[in-house]
């Protein structure tokens, strides 16, 4: 009787559609429905279902990989191409991670990142090629330029209150124009070797075994990373149990952890079969780790989600929402600076048309990766999957000889379908 009251209370309180979901949960004795995170008592079936649902984009990614794997006769999956994929998409992934933070604040985007990439590249060219400045100070100056652009956006958006769409649209024009001015409309090339090597080469094999066509360093790093990962996960679980917290299902935990560790080892092995780990991957991994930790484990990260989920409630909880907004945009352009350097090394030139439409790839990666267009929802891992999805689509279609025009149509449709699917599945599950 009491339960029924409550259930019915929910009808009024939260709208009928949501009730259905809540009701389902109560009926199953609090076991959590598919989209809920599992907690106290869960059955394996539900964990599997919820895992599948949570990772629907990952599954789509695997499906696309298999399709392209077949249609290209496996070419897309050979170690050399995987290495290539990383080179081609590292900067998009870096931009997408920055874009995620902006989107989290409330579906806001940054339209200026392509221009920022270009301007930072232009500065790199001007400093290193024209003025022959040493590499390290040049890099620092370039990153500082990125940060400065971010501060500029942050001030306009957070403290003056210009809508992000407009402020960054203005930025797109301003910084594209500035790049043209810096470069005088010309392309500068080539960069000094030491700069180039930073993001285009592979990490050399320090423990080369003669006669073995395998990059031992790369594999070793992979195994080490997997071990560190296991150690962190398991010690975390032990700490949890020791402190008397509910540790969650053991089977799920070990399967999940084991699979992830195996993937790390496998990827490093696969890359070791070619020339080893691309240097740019190091930058990418560092960026991803920092931002994954920031968004999921820290107080400022929590503020981002709160701001996107309900800006008024965030403010009334004592959160300095302007500061959070400022940070998101300052950070975005800083990362655009990082991406600009990575892209400059890849092009090996500073080009006034560099980075055009990069913002669109970054935004698409976020939304394909499950970020909400209203803010407050999205993860770094999701964005990474989104970026990989875009990259693999590009690469696969290139192999299959699609024209650029056709590629754009396909990518546009994929973005639309991914978000449409997401919206529909959310509506159904409510």
């Amino acid at each position: 009787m009491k339960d029924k009251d409550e259930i019915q209370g929910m009808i009024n309180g939260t709208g009928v559609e949501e009730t259905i979901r809540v009701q389902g949960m109560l009926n199953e004795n609090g076991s959590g429905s598919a989209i809920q995170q599992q907690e106290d008592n869960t059955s394996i079936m539900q964990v599997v279902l919820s895992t599948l649902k949570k990772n629907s984009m990952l599954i789509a990614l695997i499906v696309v990989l298999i399709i392209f794997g077949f249609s290209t006769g496996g070419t897309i999956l050979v170690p050399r191409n995987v290495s290539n994929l990383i080179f081609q998409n590292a900067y998009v992934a870096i931009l997408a991670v920055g874009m995620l933070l902006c989107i989290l604040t409330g579906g806001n985007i940054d339209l200026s990142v392509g221009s920022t990439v270009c301007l930072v590249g232009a500065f790199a060219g001007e400093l290193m090629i024209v003025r022959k400045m040493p590499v390290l100070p040049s890099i620092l100056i370039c990153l500082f330029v990125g940060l400065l652009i971010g501060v500029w956006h942050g001030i306009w958006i957070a403290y003056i209150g210009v809508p992000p769409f407009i402020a960054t649209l203005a930025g797109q024009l301003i910084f594209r124009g500035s790049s043209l001015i810096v470069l005088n409309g010309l392309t500068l090339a080539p960069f000094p070797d030491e700069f180039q090597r930073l993001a285009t080469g592979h990490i050399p094999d320090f423990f080369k075994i003669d006669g073995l066509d395998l990059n031992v360093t790369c594999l070793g790093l992979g195994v080490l990373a997997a071990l560190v990962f296991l150690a962190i996960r398991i010690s975390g679980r032990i700490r949890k149990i020791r402190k008397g917290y509910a540790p969650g299902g053991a089977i799920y935990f070990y399967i999940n952890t084991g699979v992830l560790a195996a993937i790390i080892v496998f990827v490093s092995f696969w890359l070791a079969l070619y020339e080893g780990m691309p240097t740019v991957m190091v930058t990418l991994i560092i960026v991803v780790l920092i931002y994954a930790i920031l968004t999921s484990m820290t107080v400022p990260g929590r503020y981002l989600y709160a701001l996107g989920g309900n800006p008024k409630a965030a403010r009334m909880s004592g959160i300095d929402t302007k500061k959070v907004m400022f940070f998101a945009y300052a950070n975005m352009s800083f990362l655009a600076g990082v991406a600009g350097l990575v892209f400059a090394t890849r092009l090996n030139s500073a080009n006034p048309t560099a980075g055009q439409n990069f913002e669109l790839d970054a935004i698409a990666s976020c939304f394909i990766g499950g970020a909400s267009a209203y803010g407050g929802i999205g993860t770094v891992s999701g964005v990474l999957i989104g970026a990989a999805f875009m990259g693999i689509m590009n690469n696969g279609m290139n192999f299959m000889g699609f024209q650029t025009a056709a590629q754009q149509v396909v990518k546009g449709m994929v973005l639309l379908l991914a978000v449409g699917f997401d919206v529909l599945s959310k509506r159904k599950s409510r």
Partner: protein
Amino acid sequence: MFDRFHARLIPCQSKSERGDVLLAKSLLEMIDITKLFPGVRALSNVNLTVEEGEVHAIVGENGAGKSTLMNVLSGIYPFGTYEGQILYDGEECRFRVIRDSEKKGIVIIHQELALVPYLSIGENIFLGNEQHTTGFIDWDATYHNADKLLRKVGLNESSRTLIKDIGVGKQQLVEIAKALGKNVRLLILDEPTASLNDVDSRKLLDLILDLKKNGITSIIISHKLDEISYVADKITIIRDGLTIETLDKATDDISEPRIVRGMVGREMVDRFPKREPNIGSECLRIEDWTVRHPLFTDRLVVQDASLNVRRGEIVGLAGLMGAGRTELATSVFGRAYGTVLKGRIFKDGQPIILTSISKAIQHGIAYITEDRKGDGLVLPVSISENISLAKLSKVSKKYFLDKDLEKNVAKDYRDRLSIKTPSVNQLVGNLSGGNQQKVLVSKWMFTDPEVLFLDEPTRGIDVGAKYEIYCIMNDLVASGKAVIMISSDLQEILGMCDRIYVMYEGKIIGELPRAEASQEKIMSMILSASKGA
């Protein structure tokens, strides 16, 4: 009672006798309506008969199925998604969309008004029903006809005024004018007075009675039983998706206790839990607090307000809507509202300056908002993340969150405040109003406050949940905290508070100890202030 009711319905089930009912001029009959949601029987065999020209009230606790029933009637839940029959004007109706029911003159006005703030009153009245000639809007006809409708509902505004510029009470009248514009015969009002003050509510109820004289039948859903006793001819009580009984003003007792008994299925002995006041030293004192409106710089929303609250005490702020109570609280709470022109705050006798919300939180002040969905909770986020949000420092070390600790904290509150949820990972948006309110209270209890401002803490939650919130308030003051409660429900203020301040137009016009306070006294204070002004 049930037998009588049942007997009355039997004729509906056989065709030959249905004629009798028609002779009695039943405008609407809903017969054996059953509505299922996966796993829930929201309505089971509900019957409702509404006679032409009467005001028929539907009462029941939150979630009893009132709104669901009205959604079935208006076609929001289209024909085929429910079982049962709707007879309107003697013929069976199968509404597929709202437009179908509106064509028949059935208009529903929801609790959350469906007006567009940046359009004029006239445009809103004819929204979806535009006055046009071959696709071009006839603005003269729009405003002329809108003005006529406004006069009918007694609203003295130009139909060219924008909706955002008139208050909620007037907006409610615009909704009714909009319904009249659709040639309404059966008007359904879902909680029409929920956000109105007493004066506006009375106006609205009188308008309903006025419309009745002009032959418009009304169905009114309301929590406010005194209003129902005032306005309704018949009252149908719904509980747990079942029609319990229909009371007729002419023949039955329709006093409040009688209605409540039907609603909850038992006698409600006390609406407010007992508490032995144990009042300590002064905790917070506010002196000469004056606040300017954030946009209209010549308007003072709070003027020379002085008040204090002691440990273990619940102090009430009574007043009409717009009296400046919320503005007083939010401006004290780290200047979250307006510009503070002057005033001092003393905490335990020491002067403090609160320039930001985070400072206010540090000083042990909490403001629990009246608008839990608007600026209280982050709906797409879990219960545990909501509870910790205002004091993340308690669950983090050097910016790194301890999520396990956070969850345990949430579980602790879930148990203490009996928040009904299978998991603290549940998204707050999925909870019922009462449970959301408890999460909101937990969130602010977690900040270790010494003074809590509770702004309309029981708005929009059902009787049972209200009682639980009252108990939580009593526990808070029992543990030595000070509570300032803002409420538009005078009975609640009288039932809960040790001392009451009355506010009118930004000024505190009086202070009453519990023993001396009464509803009449407070209202007469407000009335004499309004005359003096």
